[in-house]
């Protein structure tokens, strides 16, 4: 069984290699090959899961040592895999959702002439992501971490002919790099502290290490998680990452890659448990991001960017839960999985809507689509109900548990975190209802297709005739079936996990679990969650359901305008980082030009001028030199005499 682990990674890696190196002759079958290998990986994952489920909880962890990567005295880096319940959860999520999105992409990317390459990148992503969650040490995890970053970069910039996509890809890559720096520093700190970076030895010896060092490692890991999971302050790339094809947004920027930060924190749980300050920082980051993303999500008219804000916010929930320690780890992962289902479903639904609406992304130009796209409407609606936490659907279970755990943190912190989480739930209900109402309800506000010359952001390969009115239509089966599957997951996932605390028992051996004791009863928490959800939905209905939605966005309040600009995140980065960097470099250049170059050039000029003058002494006549020698001798004698006289 152990030997199958490597195959999990190898299958999509093989797909990537074949598809990317195979050339045009694979164009015809490339998408099927990519999908088949993703599915193969999923099948292997299921086989491994069945095997694992058959063992007792204590013996479920298996590992596979492939080869010694860097066998140096005192520095042992192995390519070795570790498959435990946590990794298993991720493997199933990644390969399952990944395979569904591969299938969906067959339809979505049908008209794109670079579809083979797209599937190659998707397979590369799957391989890297699986490597990330299967690695048994931080260094190999880092390889996967960088691999998903690369795949993300390639896929965001897939339509590289669009300057906005190319820029977004670069932005994502650069911001991620900040986080990656945190991870690499954390690994270096681990190596200096523990002498190794394998999960086992590092996490077992946290008790013998100083809290300061653990806090440092924890903060660096948090920085890494912020970069990959788009958490404040490294959140700015996620919104722009929506420039990529919608399946990419669904797979990488909603369901899997962006949750790698959560995985990292949960996996490193022992470090955070021993470093309360770092843990607190994690919760703060999560709480801030969950509000940040939710507020941004409320203001965006671009359906994908609204969903991106939502993703940020939901990952904020997970990070918050992961920061709560053993009372939250399981719920973080549980929310991660359910979110993977419903958010992927929502994105696929959004892609389906765009597919039918000439790639229009502005929700103000949608409206009344439920009649034209029934399957999309139903699946999107189920995903919507799941994310707002409608009782009985998956989001309800996982989010409710997180809010409960936040209150259970205890003390003032608990009240604040719980309050924030509740507020976030209300805002989530508001913005998701807004998306729902603006897209599928109300009157039809469709606009003729824009002139591609004026608005070059139209996705290629799809025939759009300028001035043509959109003809919304249901997407082909190859796209709707994955949406249906994901919708089923969104509906029943939460209940399946929660009934009988199945998920808790499943993960407990790995992540450890403690039952929190919230200051108010669990029932009260649940009631208030449902209550704020209803309030959020009501408010959204008041604004967008009862009144017609204007096609041109109203000016809006100060907060709305700020939120439309992503709460000024780019302006902040521009002012603080770009300007600051520019000023720094400019002053450094100035210092270099004036001071350093001045000293150097001044020395050179002084020497040059001096030599120019001294050169005249060198007339080449031996007699002139003899005079100076003679004069020198006279001076020497004079000096000697003076010395003697003194």
């Amino acid at each position: 069984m152990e030997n199958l682990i490597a195959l999990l990674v190898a299958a999509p890696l093989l797909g990537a290699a074949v598809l990317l190196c195979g050339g045009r002759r694979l164009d015809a079958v490339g998408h099927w090959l990519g999908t088949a290998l993703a599915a193969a990986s999923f099948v292997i994952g299921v086989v491994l899961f069945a095997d694992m489920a058959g063992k007792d909880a204590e013996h479920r962890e298996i590992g596979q040592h492939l080869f010694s990567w860097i066998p140096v005295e005192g520095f042992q880096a192995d390519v070795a895999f570790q498959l435990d319940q946590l990794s298993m959860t991720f493997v199933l999520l990644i390969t399952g959702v990944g395979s569904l999105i591969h299938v969906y992409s067959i339809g979505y990317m049908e008209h794109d002439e670079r579809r083979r390459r797209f599937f190659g990148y998707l397979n590369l992503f799957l391989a890297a992501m699986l490597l990330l969650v299967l690695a048994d040490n931080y260094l190999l995890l880092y390889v996967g971490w960088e691999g998903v970053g690369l795949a993300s970069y390639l896929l965001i910039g897939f339509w590289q002919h669009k300057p906005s996509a190319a820029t977004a890809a670069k932005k994502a890559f650069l911001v991620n790099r900040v986080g990656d720096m945190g991870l690499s520093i954390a690994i270096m700190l681990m190596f200096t502290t523990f002498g190794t970076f394998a999960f086992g030895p590092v996490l077992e010896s946290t008790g013998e290490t100083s809290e300061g060092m653990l806090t440092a490692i924890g903060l660096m890991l948090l920085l890494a998680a912020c970069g990959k999971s788009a958490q404040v302050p490294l959140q700015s790339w996620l919104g722009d990452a929506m420039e990529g094809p919608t399946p990419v947004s669904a797979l990488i920027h909603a369901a899997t890659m962006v949750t790698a930060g959560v995985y990292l924190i949960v996996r490193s749980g022992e470090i955070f448990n021993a470093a309360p300050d770092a843990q607190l920082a994690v919760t703060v980051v999560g709480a801030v991001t969950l509000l940040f993303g939710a507020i941004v999500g409320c203001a965006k008219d671009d359906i994908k960017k609204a969903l991106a804000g939502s993703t940020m916010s939901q990952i904020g929930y997970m990070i918050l839960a992961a920061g709560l320690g053993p009372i939250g780890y399981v719920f973080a992962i549980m929310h991660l999985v359910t979110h993977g289902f419903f958010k992927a479903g929502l994105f696929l639904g959004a892609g389906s809507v765009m597919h039918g609406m000439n790639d229009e992304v502005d929700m103000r130009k949608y409206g009344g689509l439920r009649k034209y796209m029934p399957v999309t409407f139903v699946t999107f609606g189920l995903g919507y109900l799941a994310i707002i936490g409608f009782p009985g659907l998956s989001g309800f279970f996982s989010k409710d548990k997180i809010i409960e755990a936040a209150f259970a943190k205890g003390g003032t912190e608990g009240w604040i975190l719980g309050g924030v989480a509740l507020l976030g739930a209300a805002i989530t209900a508001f913005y998701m209802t807004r998306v729902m109402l603006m897209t599928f309800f109300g009157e039809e506000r469709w606009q003729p297709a824009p002139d591609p010359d004026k608005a070059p952001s139209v996705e290629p390969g799809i025939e759009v005739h300028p001035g043509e009115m959109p003809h919304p239509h249901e997407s082909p089966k190859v796209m709707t079936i994955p949406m249906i599957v994901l919708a089923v997951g969104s509906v029943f996932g939460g209940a399946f996990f929660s009934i009988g605390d199945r998920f808790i028992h499943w993960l407990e051996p790995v992540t450890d679990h403690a039952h929190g004791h919230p200051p108010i009863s669990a029932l009260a928490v649940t009631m208030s969650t449902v209550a704020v959800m209803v309030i959020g939905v009501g408010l959204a209905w008041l604004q967008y359901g009862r009144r017609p939605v204007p096609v041109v966005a109203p000016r809006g309040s100060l907060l709305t305008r700020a939120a439309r600009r992503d709460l000024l995140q780019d302006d902040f980065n521009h002012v603080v980082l770009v300007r600051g960097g520019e000023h720094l470099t400019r002053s450094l250049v100035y210092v270099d030009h004036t001071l350093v170059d001045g000293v150097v050039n001044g020395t050179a000029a002084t020497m040059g001028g001096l030599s120019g003058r001294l050169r005249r002494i060198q007339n080449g006549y031996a007699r002139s030199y003899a005079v100076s020698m003679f004069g020198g001798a006279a001076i020497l004698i004079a000096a000697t005499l003076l010395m003697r006289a003194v």
Partner: protein
Amino acid sequence: MTQFAAAATLSAGTSTGEAFQFWVLGTIAVLGALGTVFMKKTVHSALSLAGTMIILAVFYLANGAYFLGVVQIIVYTGAIMMLFLFVVMLVGVTAADSLKETIKGQRWLALLCGLGFGILLVAGIGNAALTEFDGLAQANAGGNVEGLAALIFTDYVFAFELTGALLITAAVGAMVLTHRERTERAKTQRELAEQRVREGKHLPPLPAPGVYARHNAVDIAGLLPDGTPSELTVNKTLRDRGQIRDVSAQALNDLKALERRAEDRLERTNSGSNGKNGEASK
């Protein structure tokens, strides 16, 4: 000479005779040195130096350095100075003999440095307490040459050997420097002529100096067709010495004299014409 030497040997001080000798010969030596520096012609410089060296030899003897005095005369004055004269003969007179200074400020700087240096040396000697003279009576007791020999072959034997090596090296070096081995075939006359044609230089032989009925000398420059003297016709050495006689005006002068004589003969002189005028006035 032996008397002076005996005086030096016997006492640490100096006799009146030695003092007299010092002042007279010392003055001549200084004059000789100045002559060496300031004589315009190299030969004169060399002779002045030879004189100074002979006087120095006398002073060596007076100071009890008999061996050195003899060596000074034989080796220095006899051999080295003759070598100098040979070289002077080889090199001949050149423009470098001119005492005119060509480097700006060199002469004044040199004189200033020399003066300062001299004053400092004199001051240094005067400053040093050099009153006691032991005399060489004891050192020269076994004979000056024997004493030197004893030292050279004991204490200074290594230096002595080294000077031997130095002399051999110098001899070889002089040979290497002056010996010219022909590394290529000598050019034939035809080749030389062709080379001259190629280079466009003066093709025919150099013109002969001016030859006149009354003046037939190599120091007279021949005249070009326009009447200007051509320096090419005079030997280079004479040119360097500035011993060219210019006879460019001679022909005109001769012509004038001829005309005058002719007029004299024909009695058509100024006085004649005056006479005519006189006759007319008469």
